[in-house]
């Protein structure tokens, strides 16, 4: 009888430990996603300024600039709607459009030397990096969280306690972000 009680108590304590560990990780996942979110908002604020200041020089890249503006609007709409897959897809497109824009500015020496554009380009690079690193950190935490749920014996309790695996922040498979923008160096 006593042995049974002790075993039961040990099992209960063990489950409590698993539960607390998972709660901690779930909060970390939420926090890590917030970090990405902050950077995405920053990017929305940065784009209009950037487009305005490069518009004059990059007359022949109207379509690229258009794409950036459209992608920003689409991403903001998706963010407001709150569908995770939609957000990922639209943000991926925005990343791709911006990447193309950054690559194209390499063709404009005037632009690169422009004192008002330079800080903006640095800010853009910074924000893009921040998004990339925040995503990397988020994915690391999510992987840890998911693994913690899936290993034996946690997998017996995790679903029972109401945990489900979190989504990795991956760029959609068909996203153009995966392909490197081509830069035409021919004069």
């Amino acid at each position, binding site marked *: 009888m006593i042995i049974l009680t002790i075993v039961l108590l040990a099992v209960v304590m063990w489950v409590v430990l698993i539960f607390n560990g998972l709660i901690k990780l779930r909060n970390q996942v939420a926090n890590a996603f917030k970090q990405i979110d902050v950077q995405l908002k920053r990017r929305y604020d940065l784009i209009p300024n950037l487009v305005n200041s490069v518009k004059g020089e990059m007359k022949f890249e109207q379509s690229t600039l258009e794409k950036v503006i459209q992608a920003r609007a689409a991403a903001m709409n998706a963010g407001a709607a709150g569908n995770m897959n939609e957000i990922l897809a639209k943000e991926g497109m925005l990343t791709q459009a911006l990447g193309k824009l950054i690559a194209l500015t390499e063709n404009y020496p005037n632009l690169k030397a422009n004192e008002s554009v330079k*800080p903006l380009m640095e800010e853009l690079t*910074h924000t893009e990096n*921040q998004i990339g690193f925040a995503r990397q950190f988020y994915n690391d935490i999510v992987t840890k969280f998911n693994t913690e749920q899936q290993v034996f014996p946690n997998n017996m309790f995790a679903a029972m306690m109401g945990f489900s695996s979190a989504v990795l922040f991956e760029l959609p498979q068909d996203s153009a972000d995966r392909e490197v923008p081509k830069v035409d160096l021919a004069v």
Partner: protein
Amino acid sequence: MNIYEQQARNRRMTWGIMFVFVVFFLVIGMGFDFFYLRFSPLKAPAYKWNSLGYYEASVASQPVPYGTIFALLIGLGMVANSMVNGAKMVLRSTQARLAVPTDEKERQFINVVAEMSTASGLQRPQAYIVPDADLNAFAAGINPGNAVIAVTEGLLSSLNREELQAVVAHEMSHIKNYDMRLMTVSAALMGAIALLSDLAGRTMRPRYGSSLSGSSSVPGSSSGGRKSGGGVLMLVVFVLWLLLVVLAPLISRMLAMAISREREYLADASGAELTRNPLALVSALEKIRAAVTPTYSINNGVAHMCITDPRGSLIEEKMGLAADLFATHPPMQKRILALKVMAYQNARVEGRG
């Protein structure tokens, strides 16, 4: 070996070295007690019937182990001091100043530090600039919460953004792995051992004869028949201990340097893990290596916290025994090679996937 295995191996290694350090520390203190104060932890205390009506371990039966107490107190005191004042002292000694966001390059540096704090999930350290033309960088601070990262002006002006990112990632990993704490503590321990060995060496003369004269209080020689044999054994042990005390500063320095070199490999590895770009660190290290002049504004006390030895690359370039024992940093060639292997493995994994 991949990045994670390398981290695990380096951590194990560091714990081993730290363990040896502490044992070493105790041997000096306890040896002093044993030989000079005739304190023996093995001897049973004499019990006396006291006035309160019970048996009490007699105070007089064992001398107070001043040596051990003193050794531990000095070690603890020096460690505590360096923990509290370490970062401030380092920044003052290098004349570092806060980076200003209005300057273009310094703005970039601040941004890169922010990026690396995002990647590592730590609080953002403060960004400092050291007014020196040589290429170097260091991190300071005991907790990730109050850490600082400093780079020289020379580094800022000659590295591009990716290379700067790699260097900052290296320093960020020092913070993440709690290297600053370990380094500060090992430096303080090194100082404490040097001090103790000096003290123990100076106080040896008066008691030397009496402790070896075979008096009954010397442990190991208490049995009457083997008195003389015990005396010879004691003499050998004593000479060995004395030798250890004399060599203590040298050995502890070698240990501290061994820790330092292991941490450099670890910081290179986990820095590359943060940026996922080992080759940027390779090219940064190659630029730093090419700048052979010493970093004058960073003194040797801070050497173990820098990305490269501030004494210039003379010591690091040698790969012989002396370099292996006394350098704060592994030879640049070995570091670059390890990073290149990492980059090669990453490329291979991506190629498969």
